[in-house]
C-alpha cells in the first residue's frame, strides 16, 4: 500500500466524478476498521503512531471524495489544472450579475428577519447547484474536458460559498 497514492487509488475506486457513494462509505469503514487508533490503544508506540497516520490519511481521502466540490477540485488538481481559489476572477458578466442578485436577496431576507425566505433561498440554490453538478459529471466523465470542468468548478465555488452565507444567516436569526 502506497501511503502517497491518490485518494481514488487509496480506496481502489475509479478516478471519475460520478461516485459509487455506498462503495466509498463501505471501503472507508473497512479501512478504518483496520487502522483506527481505537484498534491500537493497547499496542506499542510504533503501532499507535502508524495507526494515527493511516486513520488520518483515510479521513482526509474520504472527506475529499465524499463532497462533490472537493472531489471535482481534487480531480482537477490530479489533472494538473489549478482552479486557483481567488486569483481567477474572470467570470462571465451574467454569472456575476446573478450572483449579485442572490446576495441582495439574502441580505434583504436577513435584515427583515425572514427565516422562511432564507430557507426558500437555500432550497432554490441547492436545486440550482444539483443541476450544475450533473453537468460537471458529463464534462469530467463523458466529454473528458477538464478545461470546461474547471470553469464550472469556479462557479460552484462561488455558489457553495453563497450557500454557507445563507446557512450562517439562518443560524444568526436563530440566535
Amino acid at each position, binding site marked *: 500500500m502506497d501511503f502517497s497514492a491518490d485518494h481514488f487509488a487509496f480506496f481502489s475506486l475509479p478516478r471519475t466524478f460520478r461516485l459509487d457513494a455506498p462503495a466509498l462509505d463501505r471501503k472507508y469503514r473497512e479501512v478504518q476498521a483496520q487502522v483506527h487508533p481505537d484498534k491500537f490503544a493497547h499496542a506499542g508506540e510504533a*503501532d499507535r503512531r502508524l495507526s*494515527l497516520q*493511516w486513520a488520518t490519511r483515510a479521513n*482526509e481521502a474520504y472527506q475529499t471524495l465524499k463532497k462533490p466540490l472537493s472531489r471535482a477540485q481534487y480531480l482537477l488538481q490530479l489533472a494538473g489544472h489549478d482552479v486557483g481559489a481567488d486569483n481567477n476572477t474572470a467570470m462571465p458578466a451574467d454569472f456575476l450579475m446573478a450572483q449579485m442578485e442572490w446576495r441582495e436577496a439574502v441580505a434583504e431576507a436577513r435584515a427583515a428577519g425572514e427565516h422562511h425566505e432564507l430557507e426558500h433561498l437555500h432550497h432554490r440554490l441547492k436545486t440550482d447547484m444539483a443541476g450544475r453538478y450533473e453537468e460537471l459529471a458529463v464534462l469530467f466523465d463523458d466529454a473528458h474536458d477538464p478545461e470546461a470542468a474547471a470553469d464550472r468548478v469556479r462557479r460552484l465555488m462561488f455558489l457553495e460559498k453563497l450557500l454557507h452565507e445563507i446557512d450562517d444567516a439562518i443560524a444568526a436569526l*436563530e440566535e
Partner: protein
Amino acid sequence: MALLQIAEPGESSAPHQHKLAVGIDLGTTNSLVATVRSGLAVVLADELGRSLLPSVVRYTADGAHQVGYEAQAQQSVDPRNTIVSVKRFMGRGLGDIAHRESMPYDFIGGEDAPGMVRLRTAGGVKSPVEISADILRALRERAEAALGGQLVGAVITVPAYFDDAQRQATKDAARLAGLSVLRLLNEPTAAAIAYGLDNAAEGVYAVYDLGGGTFDISILNLSKGVFEVLATGGDSALGGDDFDQRIFCWILEAARLRPLSAEDARLLLTRAREAKEYLTFHGVAPITARLGSGELVDLQLTTEIFTEITQTLVAKTIQPVKKALRDAGLQPQDVKGVVMVGGATRMPQIQRAVGEFFKQDPLNNLDPDKVVALGAATQANLLAGNRAAGDDWLLLDVIPLSLGLETMGGLVEKIIPRNSTIPAARAQEFTTFRDGQTAMAVHVVQGERELVSDCRSLARFELRGIPPMVAGAARIRVTFQVDADGLLAVSAREQTSGVEANVTVKPSYGLSDDEIAGMLKDSLEHTRDDAMRRALKEAQVEAQRLIEAVRSALKSDGELLDADELARVEAAIARLQTTALGENRRHITLAMDDLEAETKDFAARRMDKSIRRALAGRKVDELNQIGSQGEQK
C-alpha cells in the same frame, strides 16, 4: 495482585487474559467509575455501596484532603476550602468564570490573571487539574480495591463540547492521578455506545446531555457496528448548576436578603439544588434555611415560577440542537430517537422542551446518571483488547470546534473545521518576512468567529531553528494533527533544507510540561516509596502489554518477517521478558524501546497488509480466518 503472568519464552500468554480497564465519568456534580465484569458493564460502588462520588474535594491545613461525601458534608461549614464543580474551572481563566462573585473561593490574581485559574486553600494553592486529580485518584483506588489489581488503563469522558484546553487539562489530571488514559471519550458518544449496544439501535439518534455544568448535543448515525458522530454542539458552561443559580437569585430577591457570608451562600445554593430536585416530582417545593445571623428564610417555590425563571436556560439548549442538526444536514424528523443523559434532564421543563422540538417522547430508559460511565467502561474494555476482532465496533467521532490560526489584522483562518472526523490533520506553509529570520510565532485559536478576539486562545507555538535565509525563501510546513482524543499537536519542518523546527508550546489556559512535571514530583514526594513501587509496577505491566501485543502480531503475521528478522524480534522479547522480572525500571524502559525499534518495520508491513485486505472488500470475519491460515505475500 497477581496481575503479571509471565509465560515461557516463545509461548504466548493466555489469549483471553482479561485486562483491568475502567471507564470514568468525571462529572461536574458527581463522578463514577465502571468496568466490564463477565461481559457486563457495572458501576463500582464504594465500601458503603454508594455508586456516585460527589465531585467535591476539601483541603485542610495539615496537608490532607477529603473527597466525595465526606468533603460534601463540610461544604457549608468550610466553603472556602471545599471545592465543588471544579470541572467548570478546567482549562479556564478567571475572567471566564460566571457567577464567581457568589462563589466562596479565594481565587488567585485579578480579572486578567494569565493562564488557568488557581485557588488558595488551607492546603496550599491548587490548580483545577490537581483538584480533579484528587477525585480521579479516589476513583482509581476504589476500582483497584474492587478489582484486586492494577489497572492497565482508563477511558475518561469529557463533554463533547470541551475545547482543547479543557481536554488537555482532563488528561493532565489523569496523569497526575496515576491513570494511563486509553482514550478521552465524549460523554454523549459514551452514552450512545451504552444505548446503542443495549438496544441494537440502527439509524440516526440524538443524544441530549445536560449535566451539572455542561451541555452537549450529538447527532449520531448507528449502523452495523459503526457509531458515527455526524455533528456535535453544546455549551461547556451551561448545566444544572445554572438552574440552581437561578433559584438562588430568586431566593435572594424573594426574601430580600443582603449580601451573604460564604457559608450562607453555600447553604442557600444547597437549598436551591434540593428544591430543583424536589420539583421533579412535586408541584411546590418548600425552601427553609436558618442563616448565620439567625434570620430565617421560609419560601415556597412553585413549578410555574421555576419554569418561568429558567425559561431562557432551556431555550439556550435548543439553539445548539438546531445548529448540530443543520451541520449534520438533517431535520428534526430525521431523528429516530433522542437519548436523554445527565441528571439535569430529569427536570420536567427539559423533557417537555426536547419532546416538543423533536416531536417525540425522549428516551429515558437508561439511568441518566450512570449511562456515560457504563458506555465508557464498555469502550475501555474494547480498547484494552478484551474483545475479539469481529466482535467489536468502530467509533468515528469529531472535533466540536474549528481550529484556526491568527492571521494579519487579528483575523482567524480556519485550518480544521468543526465536526471534522478525528484523527485529522492539515498542513499549512509559512514563510519568513525578514532576512535571516530563524524563529516564528504561531497563535492557534479555537472557535467559529472571524476575529481572534472572539475565539478561544489555545496556545502560542514558537518555531525555532529555522535555517537563516533571505526573506520569503524559507518554506516552513506546519502540521496540525488532532488525535483520537481530540487533542492538537503541532510540528514544523523547513521544506527546502528539511530542518525540523523546534516547537515550543505556550498553552493559554493550560499547564506547561514543566508545571505538570513539578506537580507530579510534588505528589510523588508525599508518598515516595509508594510511588516508586507503583512506577516499577506500571513499567512491568507496560512491558507485559507490549510483549503480548508483539506475540499476537507474530502469531497472525509472522510470515511478514524473514528468519533473521524473526530471530531478532524473538531475542528482543526474551530480553524484555527477563528485564521485566527485575526491579530496575530504567532497564525495563530501555528494553521496551529496544523491542519497539526491532518491530518498527514489522508494524509498518502489518498495517500495510491489513489495509490491502480491507480494500480487497472482504469482511472482517473472513479476514480472521485468512489471518489464522496465513496469507501469501
